[in-house]
């Protein structure tokens, strides 16, 4: 039985006066891939932001790797081993590709070379400023950047958004490879056909609450229709 890497219990989060999360819970075990699902605006990104301490929970607990991280600042959580690929990429616009990759680099198996192997396109463009990259290139960069921090848990928020099918396949291949190496991953993605086969667990949110947790096989068409609209 592997250890629990991340456990989120009943968190509530506000954006100013308006509440976005009303009780989200989820767990990620070591080496597991967990899919976080739900319709638009249900709180997936907010959950991830809270895990990375870009938003603060007003209630509930977040444990990462055995440590309570509720009160920790963002950078400390990251150092514990959370690697974020955020929604909307957010590459450092005024840095070159390579500078983006080394900016937050930490020692570990993911070196610059390995990232370039995974995404040769980035190597081609390594001296180009990030804000001039195409959308897809930026997405690769965001993933590569998270990998160079050598995280225990890789968090992907819509990492395949806007990518060409071939690249998307590449990224899914990369995710699979990462999984095979035992990388724990928390992932949000809209293309269920690619997501479900690699997920060990699914967590579904609705209106800021965890409404269903289970294995992909247990996600019946009925449930999918009810919570995801497919």
């Amino acid at each position, binding site marked *: 039985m592997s250890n629990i890497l991340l456990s989120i219990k009943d968190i509530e989060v506000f*954006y100013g006066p*308006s509440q976005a999360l009303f009780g989200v819970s989820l767990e990620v075990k070591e080496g597991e891939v967990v899919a976080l699902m*739900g*319709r*638009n*605006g*249900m709180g997936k*990104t907010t959950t991830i932001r809270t895990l990375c301490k870009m938003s603060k929970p007003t209630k509930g607990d977040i444990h990462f790797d055995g440590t309570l991280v509720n009160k920790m600042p963002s950078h400390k959580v990251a150092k514990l081993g959370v690697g974020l690929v955020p*929604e*909307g990429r957010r590459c450092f616009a005024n840095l070159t590709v390579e500078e983006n990759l080394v900016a937050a680099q930490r020692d570990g198996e993911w070196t610059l070379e390995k990232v370039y192997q995974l995404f040769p*396109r980035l190597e081609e463009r390594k001296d180009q400023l990030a804000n*001039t*990259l*195409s*959308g*897809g*290139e930026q*997405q690769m960069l965001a993933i590569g950047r998270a990998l160079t921090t050598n995280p225990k848990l890789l968090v992907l928020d*819509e990492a395949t*958004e*806007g*990518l*060409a*099918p*071939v*690249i*998307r*396949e590449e990224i899914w291949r990369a995710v699979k490879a990462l999984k095979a190496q035992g990388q724990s991953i928390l992932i949000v993605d*809209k*293309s*269920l056909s690619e997501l479900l086969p690699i997920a060990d667990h699914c967590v579904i949110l609705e209106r800021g609450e965890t409404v269903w947790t289970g294995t992909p096989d247990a996600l019946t068409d009925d449930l999918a229709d009810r919570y*995801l*609209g*497919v």
Partner: protein
Amino acid sequence: MTNQPILQIQNLNKSFGALTATDDVTLDLKRGEIHALIGPNGAGKSTLIKQICGQLSSDSGKVIFNGRDLAGMDMAERAKAGLGRTFQVSSLVMEFSALRNVMLAVQSKLGTSYRFFKNVRGDKSLTEPAMAALKRVNLEERADVMTAELSHGERRQLEIAMALALDPKAFLLDEPMAGMGPEGSKKLIGFLDDLRHEAPILLIEHDMDAVFSLADRISVLVYGRVIATGSVDDIRNNPAVREAYLGSAA
């Protein structure tokens, strides 16, 4: 007459330093059709859209829209001339409610932005058409929510509503499906399917389900060049396209 393309792009070029983003691109958009533009990331699709709507100036080439050469017109003029676009990354007025964002498009369409005295709130000539546009993208319930508080997917919908409210003669949509959940994508496909009869659509999209079910024609851009234009089947079966772009999605 009716089959005269509404938008003609002729030999358009754009380079960034040594990089050629669009390379002698020629294509057109006919009335009533959805013309999908696909291609690998970085192929120059968004660049092309930006050139068409005047956000980027072209190195050479021509854009003819509705019989008019757009040379020398800036973004606002081209929008007024009837080019309605959405941005690949949502670009909205964040401190306005969804409704007021759309009202802005309505007032632009009415050409009344230099009125200084009448209060816009409760001005039916603005709110009604704006509400109608929001309704069409299923965002009417969120009309009074500030844009900054909308989720990513909702912002994508709002982008489309704003384009709709302009009542344009052609749509340029840069990845409208991106960020929409599976359900949202499904609905949007149905919606665009009808929309093409109001105004033709130049559609950039990486969602092949959407492209294959919607497109009348597809052009494939690779390294800034159009390597193929044709029907869905032509493109699906084109080995070059499969290799450069589609992979197993074909």
